[in-house]
């Protein structure tokens, strides 16, 4: 249970002259749901993307289960921000879910009945089976977010990295996503989500990583999610809901 799923080791990311992440170090355990929180521009998404090799790191390393990413890709699922893709793309819901199985399917192996059945199972877990053959653009924002989650589930990973999974979704989607993520955690997986709604952190997450270009604190909610540390993370911009 206390095995490390993901560790950031002094990660630095620069966009031109801007330093987006400035020496982030933290270690996130298996069997827990961790929220990465911090103000806008704190480098939350960037930290995830850099550790996954999507944006280049200026310095530092990320380790997955104590190994570099290349040795652990099969165990890592990534769910990008919904706004990062073109939902007008001519593809059906089920085909997006099948993308999660790329590592088993490879380039040319035909998609078999078992693959399709498993993709449906993943859709069922997010409550979208009836939309399987719809074009992705025909879905609501919350449904699109759940398609992304189903694609991540199809990878059968042990570490799930989610970028703003609750951004702009309806209450039904919110509940569905939380249920699925808790099931994953209870099965021993690690869930790490970039999150911006401070009010729901204690309710949904076990641990929190406070980030403002560097790590302010990382630990169980009871220890790290304190007014003093939040004040330090957000400076004067602390949302009123927690300022009290």
């Amino acid at each position: 249970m206390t095995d490390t799923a993901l560790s950031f080791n002094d990660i630095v990311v620069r966009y031109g002259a801007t330093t987006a992440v400035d020496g982030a170090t933290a270690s996130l355990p298996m069997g827990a749901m961790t929220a990465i929180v911090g103000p806008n521009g704190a480098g939350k998404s960037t930290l995830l993307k850099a550790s996954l090799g999507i944006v280049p790191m200026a310095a530092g390393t990320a380790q997955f289960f104590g190994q570099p990413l290349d040795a652990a890709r099969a165990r890592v699922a990534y769910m990008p921000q919904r706004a990062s893709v073109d939902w007008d793309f001519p593809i059906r819901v089920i085909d997006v879910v099948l993308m999660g199985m790329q590592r088993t399917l490879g380039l040319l192996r035909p998609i078999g009945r078992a693959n399709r059945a498993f993709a449906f199972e993943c859709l069922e877990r997010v409550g979208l089976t009836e939309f399987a053959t719809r074009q992705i653009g025909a879905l609501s924002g919350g449904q699109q977010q759940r398609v992304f989650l189903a694609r991540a589930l199809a990878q059968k990973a042990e570490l799930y990295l989610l970028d703003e999974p609750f951004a702009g979704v309806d209450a039904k989607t919110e509940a569905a996503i939380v249920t699925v993520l808790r099931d994953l955690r209870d099965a021993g997986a690690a869930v790490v989500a970039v999150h911006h709604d401070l009010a729901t952190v204690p309710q949904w997450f076990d641990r929190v990583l406070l980030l403002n270009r560097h790590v302010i604190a990382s630990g169980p909610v009871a220890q790290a999610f304190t007014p003093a540390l939040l004040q330090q993370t957000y400076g004067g911009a602390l949302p009123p809901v927690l300022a009290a």
Partner: protein
Amino acid sequence: MGADFVTLSLVPLLIAVLAAVACALPGNFLLLRRQAMMGDMMAHSVLPGLIVGFLLTGQVSGWVMFAGAGAAALVSALMVEAITKLARVDPGAAMGMTFTTMFASGVLLLELSGASGVHLDVEHALYGNLESLIWLDGTGWASLTDPVALAGLPPEFGQLALVAMVLAVLLLVFWRWLVMASFDAGHAAVLGLPVGVISLGIVVATAVASVAAFTAVGSILTIAMLICPPAAARLLTNRLGVQVWLSLGFAAISAILGYVAAGYGPIWLGLSGAVSAAGMIAVVSGLLVAGAALFGPHRRAS
């Protein structure tokens, strides 16, 4: 249709179809990745390379010109990279600057070198020379089985057939990678797909198709065939596989209808002579897009 058709029309028609198909294949992915401007760029930028190839060998067609055009495509791709980084403009603007400069320098080269007057002049750069790609050894349908006559086919035919075939095979083999990297590059990269190589591969495929098509059909038809058939197909389906097949069908239909209309249209209208086949093919492909936009089921709601 008799011997005249085989000698005068069969090969230009087939070359037009092959050029259209070769361009439509990578065009589907340019469209999805919102890189349609890339087609514009490639189809214009190859001109100076073609002329340098011609000046070196004195031949209007052949592999040296192909190589020259390929080199020009590469140079223009590097120029876009450099302008984007150094001048801090978006890639579309960088492409706009690059291809106009490349094409203009090609025009200047043409005028200064005395290359114009052969089959290389500004008009041919724009419209190609489809009508002149006749098959003198093709004296009837029987020539299709005569190895000696087949050896006399214009070299553009072989080049385009090879390019279309290779691009089709690559598209089939790398289909899943192309789709995943085009839809969600970040997710594909985390799964271990070489997204940078895939993007580069699409650019190279576009360059190769443009170069092969350019010598035969000119820049206007090359641009039209890269974008119009996929755009029309996109409006008729929400399945990518169906879109690609439809785009190939539209490419072939444009080529055939356009070629026939260019040859016979003026006569039907009571005029004399024929109009540019490449121009007419491009017009037909544009009309197909208009038709799909007006009557297709998947036109954008907003």
